[in-house]
């Protein structure tokens, strides 16, 4: 594999990683669709106990696809230059929750701030799906010291 570090543990004390995980950056989640083609979607996430956790609805296309093919990739980017990037490749598992996932209100709060309460109050949730991504490999780019190969 190219310039990825093969490890289940991303370095949380790395300033680029810490910055990307503490802000309200989206993750972009890639998986293989049921038709065999790749997909990439923006998604809210949290990082807990060494795993990336995303909550979605029970009928989402990505749920069925990931249940069949667990291999996923994530990129978490700062959108403005100098383009900090955390790339993760890993294996995802999907779990059904009884009612709202306990981590979901915290995730919504992180992204919506004061608007989170109204957003959550409007939801009628019987069950959700928790996508947990165990890290297989990661790569950090900051475009200052750590560049893609072509820019070194």
């Amino acid at each position, binding site marked *: 594999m*190219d310039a990825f570090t093969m490890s289940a543990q991303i370095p949380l004390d790395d300033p680029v990683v810490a910055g990307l995980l503490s802000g*309200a*950056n*989206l993750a*972009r989640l*890639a*998986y*293989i669709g049921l038709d*065999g*083609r*790749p*997909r*990439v*979607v*923006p998604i809210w996430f949290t990082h807990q106990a060494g795993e990336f956790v995303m909550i979605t609805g029970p009928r989402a296309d990505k749920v069925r696809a990931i249940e069949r*093919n667990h*291999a*996923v*990739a*994530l*990129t978490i*980017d700062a*959108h403005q230059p100098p*383009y900090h*990037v955390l*790339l993760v*490749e890993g294996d995802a598992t999907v779990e059904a929750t009884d009612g709202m996932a306990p981590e979901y209100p915290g995730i919504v709060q992180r992204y919506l701030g004061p608007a989170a309460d109204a957003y959550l109050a409007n939801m009628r949730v019987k069950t959700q799906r928790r996508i947990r991504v165990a890290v297989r490999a990661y790569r950090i780019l900051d475009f200052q010291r750590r560049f*893609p*190969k*072509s*820019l070194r």
Partner: protein
Amino acid sequence: MRLSPPEIEAFLQEPHTLVLATIRADGTPHLSTVWYRWDGEAFWIATNRDRVKFRNIERDARVAVLVDAAARETSVSANGEASVAARGDEAYDGARSIVARYVDDPDGYLRDRAGEPRVLLRIRPDRMSSWTLSR
């Protein structure tokens, strides 16, 4: 809710980054974030022949792309097959028109990278979807 076709056009003309998903030899997805240009029908991306994304595309042309603006909860995603539109010096003008969207001196930017095995990719979507919360 979805963006209208004119809204999609306007959004893709803004200098966002594009997240490109390809398929590795082992069948797992690979992601990279790149600069792009949208010409109304296709996405154009400049890369190098030694990059993982290009090696993946040579083996399996099926890709997914995502252009998003997180702060506006706005995104456009697409599927398609990537094709090689030009290589080497013939890829210069195409690469320049992409780079010029992002930097003030595209020729200087490309001169600093003149030794790279440049390749220009074209991705014409066969499926496209959009999403926005900001209306």
